[in-house]
């Protein structure tokens, strides 16, 4: 009985909990920036670490399971007092994602300064056109990457 309890306690202790350090952290399908985004996780959202691979962590956040960059989480819950000048509702998903258009203050700034965002939007489109299959093939052919492809 003691052994079982100890084993259970050890399992519970090893289930490492982490918290999202930033708003809009992307939970991805796989450990690569080109894989599908499953959700964006709010700052302070907790998750359980299931697996590690290079700079990536496989986590379970609520009902969702996926991968996040290890640099976006911390063992301690972040303080919520740091505010943003921007509208939090409008820019919620922009911080960790391949951005979808300009945030409200950035859009206003661009308009005030007569800056066209057409080229910027095109740059985002180029990046978002890279598929996970292309990325994986590219790394495999070059024998490069962080270990997620066989070398």
């Amino acid at each position, binding site marked *: 009985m003691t052994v079982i309890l100890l084993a259970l306690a050890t399992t519970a*202790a*090893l289930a490492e*909990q*982490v918290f999202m350090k*930033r*708003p*809009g952290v*992307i939970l*991805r399908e796989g450990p*690569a*920036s080109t894989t599908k985004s499953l959700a964006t996780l709010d*700052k302070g959202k907790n998750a359980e670490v299931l697996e590690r691979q*290079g*700079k990536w*962590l496989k986590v379970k956040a609520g009902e969702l399971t996926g*991968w996040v*960059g*290890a*640099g*976006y989480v911390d*063992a*301690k819950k972040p*303080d919520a*007092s*740091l*505010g*943003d*000048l*921007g509208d939090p509702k409008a*820019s919620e998903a*922009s*911080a*960790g994602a*391949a*951005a979808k258009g*300009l*945030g409200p*203050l*950035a859009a206003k700034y661009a308009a*005030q300064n007569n*800056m*066209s*965002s057409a*080229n*910027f939007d*095109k*740059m985002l489109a*180029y*990046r978002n*056109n*890279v598929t996970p299959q*292309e*990325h994986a093939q*590219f790394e495999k052919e*070059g*024998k*490069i*990457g*962080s270990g*997620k492809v066989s070398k």
Partner: protein
Amino acid sequence: MTFKTIHLLLPAAFLGLTLTAVCQGGLKDLIKKNLPKEVQPYVDPLEKTQTALTLGDKDENQIGEIVGVAVTAQYGLVQNDKLQKYVNLVGLTLADTTPRAGGNWVFGVLNTDEVNAFSGPNGYVMITMGAIKRMKDESELAGVLAHEIAHVCRQHGLKAVQEAAKKDAAFSVAKATTEGQKAELFTKLADSGVEVVTKNGYDKPSEFDADKEAIPYLIEAGYDPQGLVNYLKRIQPEIAGGGIMGTHPGISERIAKLEARISKNGNPGGATLASRFAAWTKN
């Protein structure tokens, strides 16, 4: 663009909370300490100073967006889908080896013969066609991208904005309570970001720091870090004549420091991929 700035009050309560949180931990910290080094949670270099200027995470992204808009509007993008894809593939491969793996990484090739590269806060990295024309292989491209990626990871852009803000007492984030005041303050910060990235460049310590940080990214991705040195040496004579790489000063010192650091890492070598670079970059 004008600089006005910002003084921020350091909320004592926030500092207290942070210290309390650091002192807590127990078993969780013990487990964390025993993890392999490569999976230790990343600590943003800005974190310790973040309270000095209460810019939030979303502000970083919006300032990055403004830098991206300003640079791409100024130079335009090369109308070459294949080349743009190639630079994104190399860039994303590198980005996935950094503490900001999976983040907001966007790469673009600028339509100018100038030799330069730029990065805006939160992952907007741009390189000129002039720079790519002077490269011989993929490791050189990776070297320059890794340097710019390092500026983002080390938050040099945001730090520069903060430094500019500290020099001007006219604005205070603490006093920016209305939407109008916040918008005005953001304008000042964005002005600083654009000025730093497109005109003044990062300071020398930031450049050296980005080189230092770039080397492990390159090694982990499997690229030969010597590629960055080879590229810098090739463009060095042109820089001596002035007019290019204006935002990247101190190239001789950079080369010397890079060579010493690569040597310290045991000259690891790695992929150079000259044939692939030629195939992707030819018209």
